[in-house]
């Protein structure tokens, strides 16, 4: 099948880039006013910092109210290096950026486990500590700050003029935006948005969530550091008065107002917000009213920010027409087939899980043989989902052993480690990455197989581009297999429940599972879709994947399963062929609830 897919990049973006570069180059020549140039410089470095914050807030979904602290660290480091150590700008600046990045990675650590208001507090505390420390410490000049910070010098020995400094800032800003665009459109952007969408689902596909959160913090602090460095060398003087809480608020507001998680949101937001003082300079008294008012109005009426709201307009979609067509690659369905069928793939012995006083699982022994479709049934609350959660590492077992491939005992590992073994699952409440497109959801499933690293994508090397296209073709083939390819470019959250289910299965298949565990795949499906599901399951089995299927739909489960295990109250009460299980007394009682119903079940 051939489908137009929004390609990795294209000539359109280079044109934009060149146009922007030209415009920025010519701007100060036409408007040669010192104040104007100063404002433009400021917009430049504030934009860079805001862009960095959005990578954290918009892409990764981590709130940060301490961005001013990282900005400050970049500024102070470069200022100190150039004044106390005598480094030239071209050395002190990268040094400042690196130190900011290091602090960012340190800040990431408490942020890994804290969420919501707790995470906000961590970042706030960080920001305040930076401000207070720089204000009180003699090393950073105390309240007086640092003075005589040199401007960058050119090779001929002269200091840069303001116009040249602006060109430097603008050039770096352009590069920062370009790199952000490259990261956004490829693996990193997808992964971070996936994290934000559902951490648990991302982990179940093999993504190391902690690593990516740290990476997001580092990138955002590098950007903040760059901004801070430029700020320090702009006026020759800094002190802690700048790096207050309200600066962090201002960065966050710019990012959200522009539209978090969009490519151009930070640009729009930071330019508008930072121009307010200049535009309304005459209304000195009312300035903060206007500032606060604009924030409030935008947050209330444009929750997705300016760019985010624009994206909803149909006109905008027409402009973003995808322009490359790719063909699907069915080779993706050649799953690694095993040498020996019927060997035990996954076995649990005495598996137990307690939540407080509740025994969700107790003493479960079960073996899933390779090449089979293993059904798992039982009333709501009988422990079926808990079983999957324990096996995939979402919960630690309270007791018992899990063995893989007959001999390898599974230590309690994080879910992303288990996924690397080829144990993949879907969720009872479909957990797609709603903001990503359907095909991007599947692309996230290829995470473990993508070889090109961070820098390859950053610089958009040919290898990275080729890899993207290669896997897009495979993703398309998987969507075809699940008969959902026509919706490939749509946002996943706009699909119906049944369609989302299919995308989730396609995404799970992308990880090349040896064992695929489906948690109630039939829930919410109509009869046609059910029939289709049964066929998909047998196709998956034919492709060499072993399946565990949790279901309530009796007809479906009896029809597809080679063996069925029955759970009730956290224990396995029966196991066998569908015929055997159907006639089992204990099963009948568990499902029909009452002993007297034995008669009713026998009614023809």
């Amino acid at each position, binding site marked *: 099948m051939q489908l137009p897919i929004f390609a990795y990049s294209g000539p359109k973006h280079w044109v934009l880039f060149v146009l922007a570069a030209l415009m920025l180059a010519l701007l100060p020549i036409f408007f040669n006013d010192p104040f104007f140039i100063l404002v433009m410089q400021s917009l430049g470095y504030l934009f860079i910092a805001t862009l960095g914050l959005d990578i954290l807030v918009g892409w990764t979904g981590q709130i940060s109210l301490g961005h001013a602290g990282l900005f400050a660290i970049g500024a102070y480091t470069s200022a100190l290096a150039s004044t106390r150590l005598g480094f030239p700008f071209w050395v002190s600046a990268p040094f400042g950026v690196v130190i900011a990045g290091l602090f960012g990675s340190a800040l990431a650590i408490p942020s890994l486990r804290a969420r919501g208001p*707790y995470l906000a507090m961590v970042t706030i505390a960080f920001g305040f500590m930076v401000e207070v420390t720089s204000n009180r410490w003699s090393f950073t000049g105390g309240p007086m700050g640092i003075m005589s910070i040199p401007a960058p010098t050119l090779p001929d020995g002269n200091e840069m003029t303001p116009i040249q400094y602006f060109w430097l800032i603008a050039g770096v800003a352009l590069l920062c935006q370009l790199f952000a665009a490259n990261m956004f459109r490829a693996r990193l952007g997808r992964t971070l948005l996936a994290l934000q969408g559902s951490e648990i689902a991302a982990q179940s596909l093999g993504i190391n969530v902690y690593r990516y959160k740290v990476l997001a913090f580092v990138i955002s602090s590098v950007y903040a550091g760059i901004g801070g460095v430029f700020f320090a060398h702009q006026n020759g003087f800094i002190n802690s008065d700048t790096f207050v809480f309200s600066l962090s608020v201002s960065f966050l507001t710019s990012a959200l107002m522009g539209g978090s998680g969009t490519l151009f949101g930070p640009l729009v937001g930071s330019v508008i917000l930072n121009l307010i003082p200049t535009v309304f300079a005459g209304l000195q008294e009312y300035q*903060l009213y206007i*500032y606060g008012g604009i*924030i409030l109005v935008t947050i*209330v009426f444009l929750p*997705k920010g300016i760019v985010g709201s624009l994206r909803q307009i149909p006109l905008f979609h027409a402009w973003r027409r995808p322009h490359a067509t790719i063909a699907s690659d069915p080779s993706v369905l050649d799953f690694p087939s095993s040498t020996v069928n019927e060997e035990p793939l996954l076995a649990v012995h005495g598996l137990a899980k307690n939540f407080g006083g509740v025994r969700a699982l107790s003493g479960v022994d079960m073996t899933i043989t390779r090449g089979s479709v293993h059904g798992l049934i039982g009333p709501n609350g009988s422990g079926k989902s808990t079983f999957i959660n324990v096996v995939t590492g979402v919960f630690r077992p309270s007791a018992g052993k899990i063995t893989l491939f007959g001999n390898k005992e599974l230590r309690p590992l994080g879910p992303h480690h288990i996924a690397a073994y080829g144990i993949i699952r879907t*969720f009872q409440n479909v957990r797609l990455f709603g903001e990503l497109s359907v095909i991007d959801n599947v692309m996230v499933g290829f995470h473990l197989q993508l070889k090109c690293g961070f820098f390859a994508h950053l610089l958009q090397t040919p290898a990275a581009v080729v890899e993207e296209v290669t896997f897009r073709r495979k993703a398309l083939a998987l969507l075809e297999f699940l008969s959902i390819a026509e919706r490939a470019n749509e946002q996943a959250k706009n699909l119906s429940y049944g369609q989302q289910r299919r995308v989730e299965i396609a995404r799970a298949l992308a990880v090349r599972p040896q064992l695929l565990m489906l948690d109630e795949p039939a829930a919410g499906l109509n009869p046609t879709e059910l029939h289709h599901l049964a066929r998909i399951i047998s196709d998956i089995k034919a492709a060499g994947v072993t399946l565990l299927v949790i279901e309530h739909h009796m007809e479906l489960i009896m029809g597809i399963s080679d063996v069925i295990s029955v759970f009730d109250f956290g224990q396995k009460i029966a196991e066998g062929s569908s015929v055997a299980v159907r006639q089992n007394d204990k099963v009948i009682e568990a499902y029909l609830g009452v002993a007297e119903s034995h008669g009713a079940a026998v009614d023809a």
Partner: protein
Amino acid sequence: MNSLLVKLWQALVSGLSIGSIYALIAEGYYITFITTGTLNFGQGEFLMVGALFGLTCYVSFGLPYAVAVFAAVLLTGAMGFGLERVAIRPVMRHALSLSWVLSTVAVSIILKNAAVQLWGPEQVKFPSPFGESVVMIGSAGIFPQELFIIIAALGTVFAVQLLLRRSLFGKALIAVAFNRNAAAVVGINVRRVVVFAFVLSSALAGLGGILIAPITFAWAYMGTTPGIKAFAAAIFGGLDNPIGILIGGLVIGVLEQLFGVVNSNLKEGITFFFILIVLAIRPTGLMGGREITKV
């Protein structure tokens, strides 16, 4: 040695008094957080309004202190009603969970500006109704206002908790906090409870302002830092733990003052350093609730 002990003792009392104000404001954060999952990031500005409006009533209008307190609480409570309507309710339906942070910050920016226009940007002395002379307890000198703060603020915190646990409306509020749907199904007007939560929370902040103002100065910029420190106090024990909040406020207040005795530079940063350590060990606060999502 003796003078050090005296200083420590004075620091303890000052710490308890400021700490009880932190606890009072943190109580406000607690109430709105448990009922709506949001809080007023501009709570500090409500404290400031309570202080400055109280100042106007007490000094400019010459009303008795008790009346000034009552007026300040009434005004900030009414402002809480407005805040809920303007900055909380419109953004609750937004999927993005950060909207309320910025909308409440926006309101605080507007309030700060209004305060500067109405009362000017300078610091103003708020004369204590209990006089400026120091009371000697042993060899330590303490302001009577400080003692009053401890009694009044802590008393209010306890009274609010009592209200929550014993009164019908309090139980309804706890019910809404625990499970909105279940509360709605037994006939509780959830919206009314939410509005009340914000009114109460803002009134508490206003009370804190007029109580603390005679100790520190009253001025338009007085609110931000106490607001953030009270937030740290609320976080310390876990945002959903009322005892933790009380302890958090007092601990932070005392810690600051004690470190201030050692080195005034340390005083400012210690709270934030402390809370970072706490959150590194326990990401939901020392006594914070469990976070269980169904998978």
